[in-house]
């Protein structure tokens, strides 16, 4: 397609500029080169690729997004007005992918937990560069992934979180990614690396939002390495502006007996694609992938998950729920791989969608690839409407039709809300679900 060629050319010029203006140390520079080479070779995905069959990103390809100027600024009032879940420090703010120390508050981090900007880590000091070269680009593979390649090619800043072995970080660490597009459409590329040491415990909230009517592309990549016995509770909240696009890739590798849970909440953005890939790389690991996605207007929400049971005795639980109104569409693709050695695997997957309008659509596909013979794997998908009997029951108890609908919509999501341990996220969702569903795209 001609647009793709034009688009790729424009990114080539920008890539040359980034290399010039933001040089990186040796190994990271070659990582960037490799990544751009891959992006150039792959081009943006089309619906001819199986993983993108139901998600047409032509609208993203057509916009001439520009990599932002080196340091992004944002008024505090604009930040405060964004629909981001916040519960105070420690809180780190990134504007169009770049760390903004002025807007951040690192207080409350316990000893043994370090949060640094990727730019600062890359500039060396306190072994920062070692951490990056050891992990960056190794979990989120870009060789066959154009968006991750694009993110890696333009690598400049982001968040690096290191938790020392045995350290328990009780307060959630908030990473706020704000995109600001005026006057031209911006390419905002958040990048996060989380390295949890053996036996450590940490809770991290990544939230994404943006202001304004100008489209922007938020292309986020997060890598998580959890060592043996580490516990990582991770939240991704996507509440992008109506005109915005968001593509996220969460890549996780778990050590022996470690526990990772992810909660991906999508409520805003014209096209949102969330990918999560977890490798259970040690015996006895446990992984929970939960997701809640709300669609309205002409929004498209796509969740792609892969859980790779590479070792024996690992459990995975996956529950995604969607609430779709208007002409919104959603895609869920849940892949579970159970490798030959991964005996005694216990994997459960479920995707449930609630369709509130005649025109809303969901495409759901479980994909199980099982090579071991002593495993338990279950999957299920349900698609339904609000129960008319329940609606009448509530109305017969004096609740208006609108109240009854909202109560049932909230109830549909209740079990997922119950798993969210960050009060600020739960409160935001309560408000969103009980007051109204987000309107967008119309």
């Amino acid at each position: 397609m001609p647009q793709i060629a034009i688009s790729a050319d424009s990114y080539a010029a920008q890539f040359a500029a980034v290399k010039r203006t933001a040089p990186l140390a040796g190994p990271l520079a070659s990582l960037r080169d490799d990544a751009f080479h891959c992006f150039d070779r792959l081009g943006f995905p089309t619906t001819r690729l199986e993983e993108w069959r139901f998600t047409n990103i032509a609208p993203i390809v057509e916009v001439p997004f520009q990599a932002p100027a080196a340091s992004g600024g944002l008024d505090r009032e604009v930040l405060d007005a964004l629909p981001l879940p916040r519960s105070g420090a420690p809180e780190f703010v990134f504007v169009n992918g770049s760390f903004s120390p002025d807007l951040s508050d690192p207080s409350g981090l316990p000893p043994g937990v370090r949060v640094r900007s990727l730019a600062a880590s890359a500039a060396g000091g306190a072994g920062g560069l070692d951490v990056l070269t050891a992990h960056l680009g190794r979990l989120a593979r870009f060789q066959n992934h154009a968006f991750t390649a694009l993110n890696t090619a333009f690598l400049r800043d982001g968040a690096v979180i290191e938790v020392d072995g045995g350290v328990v970080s009780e307060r959630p660490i908030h990473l706020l990614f704000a995109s600001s597009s005026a006057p031209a459409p911006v390419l905002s590329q958040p990048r996060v690396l989380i390295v949890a040491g053996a036996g450590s415990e940490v809770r991290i909230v990544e939230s994404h939002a943006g202001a304004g009517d100008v489209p922007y592309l938020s292309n986020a990549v997060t890598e998580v390495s959890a060592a043996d016995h580490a516990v990582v509770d991770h939240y991704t909240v996507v509440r992008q502006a109506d005109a915005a696009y968001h593509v996220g890739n969460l890549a996780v590798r778990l050590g022996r007996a470690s526990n990772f849970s992810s909660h991906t909440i999508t409520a805003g953005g014209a096209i949102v694609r969330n990918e999560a890939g977890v490798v259970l790389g040690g015996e006895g690991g446990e992984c929970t992938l939960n997701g809640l996605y709300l669609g309205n207007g002409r929004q498209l929400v796509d969740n792609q998950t892969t859980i790779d049971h590479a070792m024996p005795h690992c459990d995975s639980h996956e529950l995604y729920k969607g609430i779709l109104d208007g002409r919104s569409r959603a895609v869920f693709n849940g892949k579970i791989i159970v490798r030959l050695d991964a005996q005694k695997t216990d994997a459960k997957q479920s995707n449930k969608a609630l369709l509130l309008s005649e025109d809303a659509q969901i495409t759901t596909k479980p994909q199980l690839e099982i090579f071991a013979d002593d495993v338990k794997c279950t999957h299920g998908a349900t698609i339904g409407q609000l129960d008319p009997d329940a609606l009448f029951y509530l109305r017969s108890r004096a609740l208006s039709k609108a109240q009854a609908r909202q109560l049932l919509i909230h109830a549909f999501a209740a079990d997922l809300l119950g798993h969210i341990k960050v009060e600020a996220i739960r409160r935001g969702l309560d408000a969103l679900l009980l007051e109204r569903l987000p309107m967008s795209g119309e």
Partner: protein
Amino acid sequence: MLEIRDLQAGAGERRILNGIDLVVNPGEVHAVMGPNGSGKSTLAGALAGRDGIEVTGGSATFKGQDLLDLDPEVRAREGLFLAFQYPVEIPGVNNAYLLKAALNEVRKHRGEPELDAMDFMTLARKRMSLLDMDDALLNRPVNDGFSGGEKKRNEIFQLAVLEPSLAILDETDSGLDIDALKTVAAGVNAMRSPERSLIVVTHYQRLLHYIVPDFVHVLYRGRIVKSGGKELALELEEKGYGWLDAEPAAATA
């Protein structure tokens, strides 16, 4: 209180109610009895405004208003309460949350101040004791995982909190053992007052031992074919409903 004239209703193509006449005055307890399929639940549903029940003729006036013209929630706010034959399980909606929201809708409609969480809980606990209910049920999802008896108790508990002027009990006795039946009946009796009317819809006479009606009506093929005092219920218990088929003239008169 309630005046039903020549009420005709059906579901889809099927005609179920073929002209019901019934007048309920304040404080009265009316039992509507009849065999399966006679139209008892359709009558209850038509009065409460259930979707899918289509009123094709006649009228129902509640406190001087055209009841059939009101949305279900407005009927409820005006003081009509239906205790469901099959209470709906609603996972994810907290029992106390629903009841507090319901009560405050009713109070707003009456022009009374809304109750806060504390006052509500005080009232709820008082009413629960009437029904010998476990406090824990308040904080469970509505009817979710309740036993049959717990569901029916929960319905009457809601009645006791909402204090309607007209309560329709749709086969509240079905599926209850004798102890549960006594408890539920005691709860209902505690709520009887000169201002509050009851329509007790039932297949069996058993419940009417405990909730003694002023009037008993026999519903058959969508019509009230016989009305009388509480002794009519005893007669029905003795004779069953078979005689209705044997007296087609009476049944269609």
